[in-house]
């Protein structure tokens, strides 16, 4: 089909989203998109979801750290932000999400807000609560394996 004349083409805004999880989580674009749709639908219904038309574009995720671009219609950025905030877990893995910024083009969004540095976690043993436990260390962040899953800490807690 012939594409629309320029003045009728939809106007988009691109939200750069930072993602953080426990080190054992395994996410991909599909699961993120599905849970984002569910979050939007649960928060403002089918009509609102169609209006915002949230689509996940590029998705990078490794070892508990990730970043992605979410596309929304111009004028619905704040609704999109609310849906992203209501994204509590993906495939049962709890996620921390944060909108780093909003741009008018994918390229500006990538250049400004995405840095491509993901992953590089190191397995190490730390002393937590007077016991030696395995942990994953990512720069200053330390995720300690405990009975109920993980406990979040920083290097400060082990000095």
């Amino acid at each position: 089909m012939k594409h629309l004349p320029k003045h009728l083409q939809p106007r988009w805004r691109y939200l750069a989203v930072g993602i953080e999880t426990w080190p054992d989580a395994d996410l991909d674009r599909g699961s993120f998109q599905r849970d984002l749709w569910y979050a939007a639908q649960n928060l403002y219904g089918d009509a609102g979801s169609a209006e915002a038309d949230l689509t996940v574009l590029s998705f990078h995720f490794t070892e508990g750290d990730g970043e992605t671009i979410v596309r929304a219609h111009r004028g619905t950025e704040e609704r999109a932000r609310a849906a992203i905030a209501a994204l509590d877990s993906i495939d049962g893995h709890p996620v921390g999400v944060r909108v780093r910024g909003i741009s008018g083009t994918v390229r500006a969004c990538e250049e400004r807000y995405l840095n491509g540095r993901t992953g590089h976690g190191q397995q190490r043993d730390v002393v937590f609560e007077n016991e030696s436990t395995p942990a994953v260390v990512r720069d200053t962040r330390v995720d300690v394996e405990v009975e109920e899953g993980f406990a979040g800490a920083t290097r400060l807690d082990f000095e």
Partner: protein
Amino acid sequence: MYEAVHAYPDGASTAARFAATAERYGYDGVVVRADDASPEYGRLRESLSVDVVDAAEIVASDPQHASGAVGNARTKHTVVIVAGGTNALNRFAVEQARVDVLARPFEGTVNGDDRNGPNGRNGNGNGDGDVNHVLAKAARDNDVRIEVNLGPVLRDRGGRRVRHLRKLRKLKQLLDHYDAPYVVSANPTSHLKLRAPRELGAVGEEIGLGAEWTRAGLEAWDRLVARNRERLSESFIAPGVERGRYEEDD
């Protein structure tokens, strides 16, 4: 802007991890609602660029038990928070001028094995507490802030969330009408449950609380912390009365 968090062992992340995450998210600091947690506040404040406030969260089954704990905590901590959840506890908290914040008036501390319950620590959304015009007026007169808990809005689904939203709308109406003080928090139990102020504002707008109103609730923590620190400082005698040099008039 501050977020009031449940730090390890009350929650799943340490106060330091919360503070580091809050710094990235644009908060000025975190208020640690300590029940069992006891981070080294002095050291954390020195090594981090955000503020870490020592607060006590009093979790009791009835007003008699809470009353003693409030007296103990008042002199030791900057901020005193009472977890509500039953009508008796809610009423007790708002009628005590010694209490700073009535937390989770609806869902409270219903027992649950999951320490990361969706509604803040142990709260599973089945609390039977309520807030009415009597409590709102008492809260205004005693300067007790009622907490607007956004936790279930972010982390619950379906009927429980709908019921919670209905309660929040009613609470906002009461708070606005009686001009009662309030604070907003998402009750995060791990650093992954923390959300940036703008995100909470957007959620507030979406559920009918208003973005500005939500942000004002986050900023209310700043004023509370500043006021209490001043009161705990050595030069403070009574409101308006301080020990020290005269203020220069010019």
